[in-house]
């Protein structure tokens, strides 16, 4: 029977499922027919779907897996095998030791142990890794004295890597990895993610739970079923397939029925939809525990296109970090913006998965415009950040986060300036970065219509004024006064107290016997100008503060 199965676009999560489904099948060379708002596929493509499912996930997320962490050490071992250990130095040893620690940790973790049971091999990896020990060089000894131990560790490691890298082993080891690092972000509690599952083999488990019911359902006569799928309206037999397994979206019908009318749950789906939903990890792009999905649902093709660009951006990055999702998003948006007619991507929904929650934003045409205009400033912020109570914050992420939520950046700028003044050691940014943030903010406010577009660059001239005043203070040998003044100015700006700001400012200029730059007359006009100019001025005023600090230290 080769009747085609049709799946239509729906809400964003289902769309993510469709994309995942298409990605999985196309990755294995199967054909899916894509139409404007639906896809069609033959039942045959579901043969061995579990293999395709894991193959796609493993291949896509390979870089993020702990399995990859183990295997990626192979080139180094091979290098020393060829060249001999003559060049082996302390750095290499340090790296080797930390690698050994990782290997020992991973190889005895529960998920790996579960995978060993599925693999038909008489090698005992746990024993092997137990025989591994980190290598210490005593103070008296040189590195040559441990080379033999290094050699021995290399041999064992190579054995472990061989074991891990074997395709029939990788299937299970990396498969387990994928489940816990990626799939768990989307759904949980059923099939191989059910802690009490009877079937230990993840492949068979997936097949039995998702694929088999689907094929059975397709063939069976459904005319007498009295319920309808909540998603696609196909007839279904009972309401057993509820939404409970989808993180943050569904709820457990048995435990809490109050979500539905009169406590009678009617939200259940057909096996086909369930299979599609199970593919969401392949549709949403995850980086560790963050995910991103753009619901560009004008048609299937553009949906796939946009999201695969994100995938491409992330996988092409040299070092994947949790901030990668943002960067990839920005890049793919910028590309689309430049390539296509602009209205096509306006008002699309962007879904981000962070801190185990979904966050939704609509990117308006204005916002895309702003993002595009500020891309140069934004890209310069990627590596800047600050540390607050042992947590590192990336300014780039903070900025984009605020822009997406239509918030201005004044509080962020204020925070950065206060940080720069009070604890410069925790700042991984300089004044140029703050100026960039201010620039972005100005463009944002202009773009959103909060501020009139100005021809002159108020940020530049205001921060320039600050800089020159500082120079004057330096000449008078009174630079130390500036921190106190900056605090007072910042307070005035934050509380919108123009009088206090101007008072302090005039006092400074009186002290320096300089005339007050005309830019401050603009600042008096309205709040937005006042804040922008005020913050820019303070930024200029504390410019080069760290240099002063260093000099004192010397």
């Amino acid at each position: 029977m080769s009747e085609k199965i049709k799946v239509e676009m729906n809400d964003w999560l289902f769309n993510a499922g469709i994309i995942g489904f298409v990605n999985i099948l196309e990755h294995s060379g199967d054909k899916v027919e894509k139409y404007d708002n639906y896809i069609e596929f033959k039942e045959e493509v579901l043969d061995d779907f579990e293999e395709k499912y894991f193959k796609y996930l493993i291949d896509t997320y390979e870089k993020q897996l702990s399995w990859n962490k183990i295997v990626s050490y192979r080139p180094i071992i091979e290098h020393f095998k060829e060249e001999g250990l003559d060049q082996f130095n302390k750095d290499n040893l340090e790296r080797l030791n930390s690698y050994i620690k990782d290997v020992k940790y991973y190889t005895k973790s529960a998920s790996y142990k579960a995978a060993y049971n599925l693999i038909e091999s008489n090698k005992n990896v746990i024993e092997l890794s137990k025989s591994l020990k980190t290598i210490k060089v005593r103070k008296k000894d040189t590195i040559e004295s441990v080379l033999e131990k290094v050699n021995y560790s290399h041999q064992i490691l190579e054995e472990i890597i061989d074991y891990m890298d074997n395709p029939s082993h990788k299937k299970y080891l990396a498969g387990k990895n994928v489940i816990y690092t990626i799939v768990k972000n989307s759904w949980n509690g059923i099939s191989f993610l059910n802690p009490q599952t009877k079937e230990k083999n993840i492949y068979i488990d997936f097949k039995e739970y998702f694929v088999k019911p689907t094929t059975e359902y397709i063939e069976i006569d459904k005319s007498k079923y009295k319920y309808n799928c909540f998603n696609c309206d196909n007839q279904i037999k009972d309401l057993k397939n509820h939404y409970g397994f989808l993180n943050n979206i569904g709820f457990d019908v048995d435990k809490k029925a109050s979500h539905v009318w009169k406590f009678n749950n009617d939200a259940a789906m057909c096996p086909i939809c369930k299979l599609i939903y199970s593919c969401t990890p392949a549709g949403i792009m995850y980086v560790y525990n963050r995910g991103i999905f753009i619901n560009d649902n004008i048609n299937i093709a553009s949906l796939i296109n946009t999201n695969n660009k994100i995938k491409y951006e992330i996988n092409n990055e040299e070092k994947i970090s949790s901030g990668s999702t943002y960067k990839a998003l920005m890049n793919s948006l910028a590309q689309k913006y430049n390539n296509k007619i602009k209205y096509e991507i306006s008002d699309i929904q962007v879904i981000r998965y962070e801190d185990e929650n979904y966050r939704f934003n609509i990117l308006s045409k204005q916002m895309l415009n702003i993002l595009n205009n500020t891309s140069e400033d934004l890209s310069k912020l990627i590596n800047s950040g600050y540390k607050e109570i042992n947590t590192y914050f990336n300014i780039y992420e903070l900025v984009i986060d605020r822009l997406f939520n239509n918030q201005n950046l004044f509080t962020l700028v204020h925070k950065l300036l206060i940080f720069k003044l009070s604890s410069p050691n925790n700042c991984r940014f300089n004044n140029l970065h703050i100026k960039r943030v201010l620039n972005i903010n100005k463009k944002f406010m202009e773009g959103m219509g909060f501020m009139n577009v100005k021809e002159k660059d108020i940020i530049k001239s205001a921060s320039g004024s600050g800089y020159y005043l500082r120079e004057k203070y330096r000449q008078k040998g009174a630079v130390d006064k500036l921190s106190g003044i900056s605090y007072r100015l910042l307070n005035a700006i934050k509380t919108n107290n123009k009088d206090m700001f101007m008072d302090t400012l005039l006092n400074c200029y009186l002290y320096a016997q300089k005339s007050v730059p005309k830019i401050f007359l603009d600042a008096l006009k309205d709040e937005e100008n006042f804040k922008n100019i005020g913050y820019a001025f303070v930024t200029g005023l504390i410019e080069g503060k760290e240099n002063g600090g260093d000099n004192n230290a010397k």
Partner: protein
Amino acid sequence: MRFTVELELEKDRISKDKNRIILSLFKKAFSFYDKKYYKELYESKENKMKDFTFSLYMGSCTFLREEILIPEKKISLNFSTYNNKDGIMFYNSFLALKSKKINIQNNTITVKRINMVREKYITSNEVIFKTLSPIVVREHYGDNSKTWFHSLKDKKGQEVFKNNLKYQLEKELGKEALVDIKNIEFTPANTMKMVKVKNYGIEIHSNIGKIKIKAKPYILDCLYKSGASSLKSSGFGMLEIV
């Protein structure tokens, strides 16, 4: 914003019509620093009301028949404004004139030091003011021949003063302050006295002394900073909190 500017004179006598000299200095300073601002203040509109006021302190001076004798050859010019822009412009303009010799009325004035004066915060509804320059209570209907200057002590004068304040504050604070402006109450001290001041050739009756004003703090703040009643931008009605 309040400033005190030290002015140095070359000769120890100035005309009794002193406000005229200072205004001339103002105009010179503003037009020297920023022509556009000068025109905005003095040329764009006739009799434009300004947000600032000033007063003079001449030390141990003696009033002669036509002139004022200042042995120290120094005048302190007090300037106060409600508007930050005027404050900045004043500061910048006078800074630009600093230590330049300016010829006015067969005397030469040099701007010496410019100081900023810390302003007091007004938080209560009642403040006693002292006049730094005399308050003018003017009944004026656009026709100079009918203009009359009143004393703050008689009833008519108080009524006119209230109208003067109303007119001034409505322009400075906007219509939304009207209700609060209506509720202003004031009592001039018994020691208040009438003085005659020469201004542009005519003798003006004006009042010096203490006055208690009752109003919302923001209104008092405005009066404190921009001066009270008529002719304030030509050297009348500057107040200080006692």
